[in-house]
């Protein structure tokens, strides 16, 4: 018996890795007069629909996909969210 789960993967540059895109957004916001913007990190969002026996199975499966393909653990952190579930992080560390 399997259910279909909607899964969201959020990929962001690893802490300590330069994020020129985020820095550029931060600079542009500053130029536009927005005050109080601290750090900006820009990432990517991947949504998947996956058939799995349970939410845990879906999460495990997607985490494997992230480690192998969807994210590059050398430069990126990722976070897997199952719709209706609490998010779980991952850094591939």
């Amino acid at each position: 018996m399997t259910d279909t789960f909607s899964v969201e993967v959020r990929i962001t540059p690893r802490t300590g890795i330069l994020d020129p895109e985020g820095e550029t957004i931060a600079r542009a916001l500053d130029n536009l007069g927005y005050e109080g913007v601290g750090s900006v990190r820009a990432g990517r969002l991947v949504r998947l629909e996956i058939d799995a026996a349970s939410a845990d199975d879906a999460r495990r499966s997607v985490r494997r996909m992230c480690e192998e393909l969807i994210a590059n653990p050398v430069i990126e952190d990722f976070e897997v969210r199952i719709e209706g579930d609490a998010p779980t992080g991952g850094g591939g560390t």
Partner: protein
Amino acid sequence: MKFGIVRFPGSNCDADVVRAVTEGLGEEATYLWHKSHDLGDVDVVVLPGGFSYGDYLRAGAIARFSPIMREVVAFARAGGLTLGICNGFQVLCEARLLPGALVRNRSLRFRCVEVGVRVENAATPFSRAYREGERLSIPIAHGEGQFVADSGTLDRLEAERRVVFRYVDGSGEPTDAANPNGSARNIAGIINEAGNVLGLMPHPERVSLGYLGNTDGLGVFASLARSVGGGDRPHRRGAETVGVGS
């Protein structure tokens, strides 16, 4: 000897490499299709520049899983000489054959410009036709060429002399202004621990023939030919121009 040049969908420097090695060195070259499961009898594998699989997801990320890459990884792990240029360097990092990764240029701009590159280690199969410390002029053409790795990895690369090429200014110094993409420590090219896999962002094939106005890049291919040939045998043509830095 024979060079095998991989063709992914989106490769666009493959023909340039073929001409560099056939016209520049008089060596043989053959294309290796991405769906192939066979490297044939090639002595050296080259992953050329381009935008394999449209650079979807991350540059090099999808190419890494193409059928030919299974063979390339096995070839490289068995000691086969493997060269990755630009997108090929990105593929080698994604395939974990080389450490670190290549991310968007610090400027966020695609840079297409001739840059100064210093030969940091002339004792590799990819650089032996050069003199150590020689300054070359080689073009880059990339949007994602900023080499990053954790500081431990960078220290190790330096200590083991695995930084083979570094971006330098006109007087041969690795200044920040000479760094075209923000690469850590001005790194332009690195080699793996075993010394048989090298990746670099600059395009030596684009400056390998006299009629291109500059032959600074031919030394990379001449080095490989010499390494496979097992000695300093003379090349049929073109070799006399190798090693002349600008």
